[in-house]
Structure formats: structure tokens, C-alpha cells
């Protein structure tokens, strides 16, 4: 793009800026929505642990022993138990009861425990959401384990003296092993890369990226399409403006606006969610490349569409898979390998990965260089594509 005139670019950029500034309703949305969404999404994903899940607890045995179990499981914050009246027998109808699970202690359970032939405890789970079901089952198992350990301790305490004497005759290391087997063995977990184990630290680049992707692509997509719709595009083309000057002039004001937005969003996350930033310069570069890539994409959609309505429709078609497959809110590793190849096509995927590599893993540049290159290449390809499509409009 040789021979581009700063004066011509500045004229286009200033005009484009006036369009943004004059459209007060969109401007207001632009200023309010990103910080608002950040707060909203940030709190929505702040805590991923399930709490206060409504559940039914039915005790058909009613013994001191079942009461001990109920005392333990009642302390678990995962559930909000309700106890139906005696004689209730519709425990499997979760929907009618408005609960996600129901746990039934069968009649004769205490006796079966005493006989050493424990009856299973029926647990009905809402399996529509597989994650919730698995979590609830795990919580019940955990509480059963606690109860079991408590019961074991009671039995050990009340063992007849002759059994204790008998035990003392065993070799010392067998006894030690036996005692150690009585309590659960544990792994010593050390959380690396996210020491505070907060989901917000993981998800916040996803939130930033998603909001910016949405705004930049849809706003940018309207710019050329709007000119085409109102007929001003031809007036623009018969001036001696070069296509490169139009493309750069149109991108510039939106780049400035989105940089302001990114700063606002980051400020909100810093102050409100106390997310720490590592190597701001590297993060800034990642953000810039991501913005250029998104703006270029918007411009490409814009040059491709004939009306603003079409531009918005194309944007939505593009953004929909991005939301689901980009790994903004969940690790990409959960997706099958073939789908992950598609994910690699989205700028948001590379933005989130590079951002996390810097901010969470404190990785060195070579580790995330590939992502930067993809974003940069994306920006170049979309800019050239938009300029090429502008050329085709002339014919």
C-alpha cells in the first residue's frame, strides 16, 4: 500500500469517528455494556461450586443411627434438604417436587448395617445436566464416607477388651498397617498456575475477549454495508481515495474505541475482582493483535454484505460457533480433537490461550508465539480481503 496519504486517512478516520459519536444510542451502549457485562459475567462465573441444590431426604428407618447420618449430610452446603411427611412415596418424581435429587434411607437400613450386609441407599438424580448429577452423587458418596468413618470409630471404641488384647498379639508392623488402612489415604495437591484456585482468574480473558469480539465485529461489519446501503460508498469511491486509505481510515477510530473499552474492562476486573496482571506489555500486544484481527474480520464481513441487516446476520452466524468452541469459558481439551481443529480458526481461541499462557502460566514468549503469529496473519488476511472485496464493488 504505497503512497497512502496521512491527510486522506485522517479525513476518513475523523468522519468515521463522527459517525460513532453522532449515534448517541449506540455510543451509550458501547460505554455501558462492556463494564456491565464484565461485572455480570464475572460474578456469574466467580464461583462454580454447586450450592443450595434443592433435594429431598426421606428417612424410612428413623433410628439414632440414621439421625447421625442425617446430621452429617445436613451440614453439606451443596444441598438444601427438605424432609417430606412420613408416608411420602413419590421420591422419584423430581420435577413435581421441584428438586434435583432425592435420597431415600430405606427401612431396616440400620439393621442391615449392624448385620454387616448394608442395604444400598437409593439416590434419584436429575441426569439432564450430567455435570450436576455427577457432582451431587459425589457429594452424597463423600458424606456416606464420613458417616462410615464415624461409625467405624464408634465400633472401635466399643470393642470388647479381649479383642483389644488379641490385637496386641499381632506383630507391630501389621498393626500399624491395619491402623493406617482405617483412615483414607490422601494425595497432597498443590495448585500451580492458579494459586488462589479462583475460576474468575481463568475465565476473565474469555469474558474480555467475548465482549470485544462481539462489539468489534458487529460495529465494524456495519461500516461499509451502511455506506453501500445509503449510496455514499460510490461517492466515496469516486474521490481519489485509495482502497487502503479507506480500510485504514475506517479501522482506526474503531481501534481507538476498542482500546478504550479493553482498558475499562480490565480496570473493572482489576478493581472489582482483584485479578492480577502479569507482564502488561505482553498482554497489551496480545490484545492489540486480537483487536486488529477482529476488526479486520468485521470489515471483511462488511465488504461482503450488501446491507446492514445482512452484515449483522453474517456476524451472528460467525460469532455463534465462536462462543461455544473458542474455549473462552471451558478448556478446549474437553472438545474432541476434530472440533479442536475448527476452534483453532477463531481469533478468540488464540487470544484466550495466549492471554492465559502469559497471565496464569507466566510463560516465556516462544510458548505463545504461535498464537501471536496466527492473530497477526488473521489481521493481514482480513485487511487484504476487505480491500480486495472493495475493488470488486467497483465492477
Amino acid at each position, binding site marked *: 500500500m504505497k503512497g497512502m*496519504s496521512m*491527510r*486522506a486517512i*485522517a*479525513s*476518513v478516520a*475523523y*468522519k468515521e469517528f*463522527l*459517525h460513532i459519536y*453522532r*449515534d448517541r444510542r449506540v455510543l451509550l451502549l458501547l460505554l455501558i455494556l462492556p463494564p456491565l457485562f464484565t461485572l455480570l459475567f464475572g460474578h456469574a462465573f466467580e464461583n462454580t461450586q454447586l450450592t443450595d441444590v434443592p433435594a429431598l431426604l426421606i428417612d424410612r428407618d428413623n433410628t439414632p443411627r440414621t439421625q447421625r447420618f442425617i446430621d452429617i449430610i445436613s451440614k453439606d452446603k451443596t444441598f438444601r434438604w427438605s424432609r417430606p411427611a412420613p408416608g411420602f412415596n413419590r421420591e422419584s418424581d423430581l420435577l413435581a417436587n421441584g428438586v434435583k435429587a432425592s435420597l431415600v434411607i430405606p427401612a431396616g437400613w440400620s439393621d442391615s448395617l449392624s448385620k454387616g450386609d448394608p442395604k444400598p441407599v437409593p439416590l434419584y438424580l436429575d441426569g439432564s445436566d450430567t455435570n450436576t448429577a455427577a457432582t451431587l452423587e459425589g457429594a452424597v458418596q463423600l458424606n456416606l464416607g464420613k458417616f462410615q468413618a464415624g461409625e467405624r470409630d464408634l465400633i472401635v471404641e466399643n470393642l470388647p477388651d479381649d479383642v483389644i488384647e488379641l490385637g496386641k498379639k499381632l506383630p507391630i508392623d501389621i498393626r500399624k498397617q491395619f491402623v493406617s488402612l482405617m483412615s483414607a489415604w490422601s494425595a497432597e495437591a498443590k495448585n500451580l498456575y492458579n494459586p488462589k484456585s479462583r475460576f474468575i482468574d481463568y475465565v476473565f480473558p474469555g469474558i474480555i475477549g467475548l465482549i470485544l469480539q462481539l462489539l468489534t465485529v458487529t460495529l465494524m461489519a456495519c461500516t461499509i454495508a451502511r455506506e453501500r446501503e*445509503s*449510496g*455514499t460508498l*460510490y*461517492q*466515496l*469511491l*469516486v*474521490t*481519489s*481515495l*485509495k482502497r487502503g486509505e479507506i480500510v485504514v481510515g475506517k479501522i482506526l477510530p474503531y481501534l481507538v474505541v476498542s482500546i478504550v473499552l479493553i482498558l475499562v474492562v480490565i480496570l473493572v476486573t482489576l478493581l472489582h475482582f482483584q485479578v492480577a496482571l502479569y507482564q502488561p506489555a505482553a498482554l497489551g500486544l496480545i490484545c492489540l493483535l486480537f483487536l486488529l484481527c477482529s476488526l479486520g474480520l468485521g470489515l471483511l464481513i462488511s465488504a461482503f454484505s450488501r446491507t446492514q441487516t445482512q452484515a449483522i446476520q453474517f456476524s451472528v452466524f460467525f460469532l455463534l460457533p465462536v462462543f461455544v468452541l473458542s474455549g473462552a469459558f471451558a478448556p478446549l481439551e474437553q472438545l474432541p480433537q476434530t472440533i479442536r481443529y475448527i476452534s483453532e480458526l477463531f481469533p478468540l481461541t488464540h487470544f484466550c490461550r495466549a492471554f492465559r499462557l502469559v497471565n496464569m502460566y507466566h510463560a516465556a514468549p516462544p510458548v505463545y508465539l504461535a498464537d501471536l503469529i496466527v492473530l497477526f496473519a488473521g489481521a493481514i488476511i482480513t485487511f487484504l480481503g476487505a480491500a480486495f472485496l472493495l475493488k470488486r464493488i*467497483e*465492477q
Partner: protein
Amino acid sequence: MKEPAIVLKDLSKSFGSVHAVQNLSLTIAPGTIFGFLGANGAGKTTTIRMLCGLTRPTGGTAAIARHDVWRDRQMVRTQFGYVAQRFSLYRDLSVLENLRFFGGACRVPRVELERRIGRLLRLSDLEAKRDTEAGSLSGGMRQLLALACALVHDPPLLFLDEPTSGLDPVHRQQIWNLLYDLTSEGKTIFVTTHYMDEAERCTEVGFIDLGRLLAKAAPRQLKASFKTRLLEIEAEPLMPALVRLRGVPEVLGVALRSGRLRLYAADPERLLEIWRKSWPFPDLKLLGERWVEPDMEDVFTAYSQGYVALLKGANS
């Protein structure tokens, strides 16, 4: 002789099997107001768009100041201003902002631009509206602004696509006065219109129909191309007379003009002679007749309806 401002050689444009413009050849001298006349869909706008380098000719060439309008379009665009048929300035920008934008886009130096904008605002009588958004201007003022924006880089040539369509007579007059001022400065103007009174104001006129150029000459020459003067008759009752006369084989067409019926016929004198001997319509009364000079509307009718028998050089 001065070098022509525009030269078209067999310029053609087809959209698939639709031939919008066919083998158009034209030479326009500098300082001319060239009126490009034709019905809607005749190919006027397509021709202007080709000259502006907005659409690629499918055949032939067109040159502005000896530069090819397609190949050198980037260069040629500094040589002309273009006012599109549809209002196409930025509605959310003020008068001044629109002028500044197009000036900047055409790389007019800042100081020079401000001086020029001042003059254009005076010329177009928009000084009081300089801070008004273009979208809230009246139709006439919008056209004046569009004209001013097309002139901001001081081009020697101006393309106007139906600049006065839908305007009131006062604004039409204002725009034409402005165009006269511009030609007196030596600018060439290429204007499409379908107002025949405007065609009279051009120094040269070209008729296009179905993509073909039918005639190109000064308005006076075109009017002189009729073989005879035209016959106008007064008859009663008027409207049935119009219908009945259209059915006469020798009559090519009938136009109602100020209560009289103007006849287009190859040999109106013979027709009148016959009618004087025996008037063929007992239910109609012939009240009188007179002879009139053809005007531009007659020229347009004759060319667009293909009444070649009326014109000199046609062997009927």
C-alpha cells in the same frame, strides 16, 4: 481547436444478456453543458457510472483528458466531480463536515480547502446552514450541497445524474444558475435529465434510447432537423378527438398541448388538405388549425418514439 474533454468510442456495457449501453461514441468539447437525455432505463446512469470508473465497460473505451476512465480511474477521478442521482452524502454530518471530509479525501491542502469551502458556501447559498446536519436539509439544499461537495477539489469536469429531479422550480433555477456560473469559468458539465425545458438550456444535447445514441447536436439544430413545422388542430370534443386521431394510419402520434392536438405525421400538409375536403369524423367538430415550430419535447418524442419519417435525411 481545444482538446476534447470527453471522448467515448463504441462504449458498451452488458449485464449478461441485457445491453444497457451499446456502441456509444461521443466527443464533448470543454466548456460545454452536455445534456444527456433519455427515458428511465435508457442507459444514462450506466454511462455516467462507466465514465466515473464505478463500473467496468464491457466494450469500447472512454477517455477524460486523454486518460482511460477505467484503467487510469484513480488519476481520472481527480479530474471530475460527481453528483449521484440519489442523495449520497453523510446525513449525520453537518454541511461543513461533509465539505471538509470530501476536501480531505481529495487531498486539498487545508488552507486552500477552507478558502474554497467559504466560496462554495456563498455560491450555493448554504452559509446559514453550515452547521446543519445534511440529513435535515430540504431536497433543494441537499442537491446544492452535493454540488458543492463535487466541486471541492475544483475539477474541470462535472457529472450530474438528474440533479434536479423532484426539486421545486425555484431550486431548479438556482442549480442551473450555478451551472452557468461554472461553465463561464470554463468547466465542462455532463448532465442527465428528462426535463425537456432543461434540455433547452444545454449547449449540446444527446438522445439515448435502449442503450443507443440516437442524435447529438445543439438544441436548435435538433429542432431544425424536422422536415416541416408541426400541425396543431382544435377539435371538439377534445378527448374523443385525441383517441380517434391516434387511430388514423397516417398519424404517427398525437400530443395534447394547451388544449390543442399536436400531430406527428410524415406529411401533415397533405393530411390537412384531405381533411379540408372531407372531414372523416362526423361526430367531431374541427374548429381550426395552426402551424408551430417543434420544441425539445417534440424532438424527444420523435427520437424516442422512432418517428424518423418526421426528420430530415430520413427517406420516407
